[in-house]
């Protein structure tokens, strides 16, 4: 192995080792094979991809990625040319997100497809000699995959008696059972489901072409030559064969309508009918059903898909949908429980006996379908429903009681109705049950007597219970502990790794320190304030007593800011996140030393209300010395995330400080959550309340998070503008000081 390659390997080890030792081992095992494919100058790119995969998918998945270097990367060593996904992700990721209106991840894979949350693309494309064409092909893949979601390919719905349902099936059953309306179920009506799926997909691609010509005309125009070139690669087959249909799509996409046979085959003309704006997925299904027989006659084997078309993976789409649905269900039940509790007169949840179901003012729901909200026009399953006829859902009816929905719940309900057509009665009964049980269900056990708390100060805090809109008195205890500093290379390595960035940071922070400005109307100063002088002269003329504030002075504002950083040390930060947080803290300290703001750092974790823990890393005003550095290096994931007690404690500390501006910055990776009943809405509401208490004490809370779901709860907790979500862990160290700068200037 050449020295240059060895050097490069060592350099990469330095990048991987602090993230995960195990990953580093796997890398070393795989690197030899990797170098048969990649030039050593490409190792850094490879490692970047690997670390990103580790961050999002964990060790197991990353190991597989390491094994399959040829599939993830173009093997330059073996003379492969073209463009790689890694090269274009930076440019196309925002493109995909912009199209979808929500993060749509780009992931390398063997087959092109989408599960609606991500698009899977080839790791490299070398179809055309020109790189710009290969790039455009990537863009086309993303656009088409997005289009399938946008035109409703995955929400195929066939009403009973639809002509798309093959006659043989229709004879057997009078109607399709309701569960049989999805894409999967449709395909399973055929002897060869794969063939039906393939034909349906062709129809949908035709529709996607029309859709994209409407929505992204620029892209489609530019891609004309590409469509033509792709069309030329498809061997001529019989009329109505899949190859023939593919060519039709490509030529239509290129707006090349040169050759249309005078009397097309019925299948072809049916297919051509899909190229209109108001065609639906049901039309595609009709086409597929009719073409099925003809197709089996012809070849029996489908042609490989056009590259941007990819394949349909309904099962994976379903999995994504289920996940979303489950999350929506949980949120809905939680929120509705809260509403029922709030609207139920004095039920005083929490004081009830364990397990006892209390009356909530509603008749018992045992075994009944209580209430559903029908979507517009959906006439099915209306038993026990109260049609609303309105687009907005204002209330839910459980038996005869109206429950008014707050905005948040209305939005959730609308989403669920859009997805499922109704609010399943089970959601309502679950909420009702949960409401009846109140807190009794998950009460934390009584504090263990005489728990040793050596070497720690103990503080007792109230906790906010939103269900009773009051505090649980003396509910939590918080132990303040010191971290034992560790000696090691972490700090040194971090400083080395971010050397360039650090120089820039320090310069930026230095500039903030000299917040110089001219102040007018001073008693003394460097220059005469002409405005003030003229005014005073005029005042004298007017018979007023003249002002003496006639000078301009260059003032250097003392910043007078105290900031406390509260670092999440819950177990979920294990690994990469923990490392990034620590690196961020080091950079932050270095920058703040230049700036001179007073600051402190605390970590928090714990388990159960009786054992919240706060780790002192640096007190306000404590010098940034080796001990502090050692403690930062020693930060390690612990247990859970009960946010209320540490926030309340730090608020106290800040309130005692004299600074004019008091900042409390939380660095976190997710929602507040503890082992006991400190979860969901309860945990969010307590945290929110702790933050409101902080604001009342003149403290500005701010949250920096890497939780991609943060938008769902952080605005509620911190306020619309008081948080920032960083979408990549790797950006934390660079971004945090920048955010601090923005916050305080």
């Amino acid at each position: 192995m050449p020295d240059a390659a060895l050097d490069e390997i060592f350099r990469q080890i330095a990048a991987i080792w602090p993230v995960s030792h195990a990953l580093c081992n796997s890398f070393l095992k795989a690197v030899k094979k990797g170098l048969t494919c990649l030039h050593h100058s490409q190792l850094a790119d490879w490692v970047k991809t690997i670390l990103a995969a580790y961050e999002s998918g964990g060790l197991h998945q990353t190991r597989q990625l390491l094994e399959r270097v040829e599939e993830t990367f173009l093997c330059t060593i073996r003379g492969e040319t073209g463009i790689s996904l890694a090269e274009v992700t930076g440019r196309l990721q925002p493109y995909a997100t912009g199209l979808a209106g929500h993060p749509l991840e780009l992931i390398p894979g063997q087959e092109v497809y989408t599960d609606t949350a991500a698009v899977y693309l080839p790791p490299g494309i070398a179809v055309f000699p020109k790189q710009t064409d290969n790039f455009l092909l990537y863009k086309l893949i993303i656009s088409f995959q997005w289009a399938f979601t946008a035109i409703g390919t995955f929400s195929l719905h066939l009403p009973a008696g639809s002509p798309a349902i093959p006659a043989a099936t229709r004879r057997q059953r009078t109607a399709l059972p309701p569960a049989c309306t999805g894409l999967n179920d449709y395909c399973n009506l055929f002897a060869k489901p794969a063939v039906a799926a393939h034909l349906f997909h062709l129809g949908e691609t035709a529709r996607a072409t029309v859709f994209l010509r409407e929505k992204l005309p620029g892209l489609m125009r530019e891609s004309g030559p590409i469509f033509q070139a792709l069309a030329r690669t498809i061997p001529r087959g019989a009329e109505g064969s899949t190859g023939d249909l593919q060519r039709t799509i490509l030529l239509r996409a290129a707006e090349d309508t040169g050759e249309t046979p005078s009397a097309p085959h019925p299948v072809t003309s049916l297919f051509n009918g899909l190229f209109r704006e108001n065609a639906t997925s049901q039309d595609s299904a009709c086409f597929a059903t009719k073409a099925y027989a003809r197709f089996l006659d012809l070849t029996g084997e489908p042609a490989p898909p056009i590259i941007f078309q990819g394949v349909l993976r309904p099962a994976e789409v379903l999995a994504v949908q289920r996940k979303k649905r489950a999350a929506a269900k949980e949120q809905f039940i939680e929120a509705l429980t809260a509403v029922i509790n709030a609207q139920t007169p004095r039920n005083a949840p929490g004081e009830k006996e364990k397990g006892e179901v209390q009356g909530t003012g509603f008749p018992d729901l045992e075994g009944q379908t209580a209430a559903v909200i029908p979507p517009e026009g959906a006439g099915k399953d209306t038993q026990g429903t109260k049609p609303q006829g309105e687009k907005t859902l204002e209330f839910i009816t459980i038996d005869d009681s109206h429950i008014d929905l707050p905005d948040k719940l209305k939005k959730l309900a609308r989403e669920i109705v859009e997805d499922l057509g109704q609010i399943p009665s089970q959601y309502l009964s679950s909420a009702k049950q949960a409401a009846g049980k109140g807190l009794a269900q998950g009460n934390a056990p009584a504090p263990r007597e005489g728990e040793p708390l050596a070497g720690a100060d103990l503080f007792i805090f109230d906790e906010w219970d939103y269900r009773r809109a009051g505090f649980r008195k003396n509910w939590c205890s918080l132990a303040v502990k010191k971290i034992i500093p560790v000696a090691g290379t972490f700090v040194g390595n971090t400083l080395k790794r971010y050397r360039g960035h650090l120089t820039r940071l320090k310069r930026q922070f230095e500039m903030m320190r000299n917040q110089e400005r001219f102040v007018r109307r001073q008693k003394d100063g460097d220059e005469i304030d002409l405005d003030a002088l003229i005014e005073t002269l005029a005042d004298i003329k007017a018979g007023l007593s003249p002002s003496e504030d006639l000078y301009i002075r260059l003032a250097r504002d003392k910043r007078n800011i105290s900031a406390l950083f509260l670092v999440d040390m819950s177990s979920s930060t294990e690994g990469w996140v923990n490392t990034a947080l620590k690196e961020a803290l080091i950079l932050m300290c270095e920058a703040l030393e230049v700036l001179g703001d007073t600051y402190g750092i605390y970590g928090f974790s714990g388990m159960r209300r009786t054992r919240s823990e706060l780790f002192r890393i640096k007190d306000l005003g404590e010098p940034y010395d080796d001990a502090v550095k050692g403690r930062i290096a020693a930060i390690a994931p612990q247990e859970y995330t009960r946010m209320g007690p540490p926030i309340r404690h730090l608020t106290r500390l800040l309130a005692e400080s004299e600074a004019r501006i008091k900042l409390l910055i939380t660095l976190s990776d997710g929602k507040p959550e503890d082992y006991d009943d400190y979860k969901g809405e309860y945990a969010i509401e307590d945290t929110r309340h702790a933050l409101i208490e902080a604001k009342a004490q003149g403290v500005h809370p701010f949250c920096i998070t890497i939780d991609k779901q943060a938008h769902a709860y952080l605005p509620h907790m911190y306020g619309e503008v008081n948080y920032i979500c960083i979408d990549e862990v790797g950006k934390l160290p660079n971004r945090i000081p920048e955010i601090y700068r923005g916050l305080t200037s």
Partner: protein
Amino acid sequence: MKKIATAAQLIAEKPFYLEQAEELHIAKTAYHNGLPILLKGPTGCGKTRFMHRLAWELTRPLITVSCHDDLSTSDLIGRFLIKGGEAVWMDGPLTKAVRTGAICYLDEIVEARKDTTVVIHPLADDRRELPIEKLGETLTAPPEFMLAISYNPGYQSVLKDLKQSTRQRFVSFEFNYPPPELEARIVREESGIEQPLAEKLVRLATMTRSLKDSGLQEGASTRLLIHAGKLIKSGIQPRTACKATITETLTDDHEMLAALEEITSSLF
């Protein structure tokens, strides 16, 4: 003399303004009840235009002051000047508005110094008074006078927050980018381009807005779309126009610029 950005106008022509909710009605009701208003919302979403329309509907002159960190109390209230050896009092814009029963609109109020912000307090509560220290007089605002302020809550700096004691004196309106159909109509009317093109611009804006937090600080505002529309109307290629008025305006980050160009080139 320092120049103050002031403009007093009785608006002659009906300004084009499309209502998103009932904001005009509510603002007029506030006016008739002597209540001041606070407009908040991101840049370029129609706050200034709304004020123009409101002033027109109420047939009151509109005096706009753009606040900055050097704006002193005298700049708002007035000062003595020397004219021909005589000291002459000159009303500041706020005083002028109170005297003439105009609408005074303090744009970007958080930019003004804290001590300046405080002078509006007695005007903004039920006293509706403006003390003029130098003249030793206190003006009581006539019913025709209205105070309006605006601010952009999107700034995350803790130094630029509106104090509770200030904001709790106002009837507040939240402005946001209008829904797509409405926004397309605004862009069309304002720039004179055709509907399909306006729709495309709005689509572009929507895409940039969904990139907020994933690399962009702010999405494209209605104002930027109108700028783009105007350039296009004057014969500049859509892609070029969007690059100049939208993408380059939104970011300096090269990767993000490239990504935004991919979006525009797909759309146009």
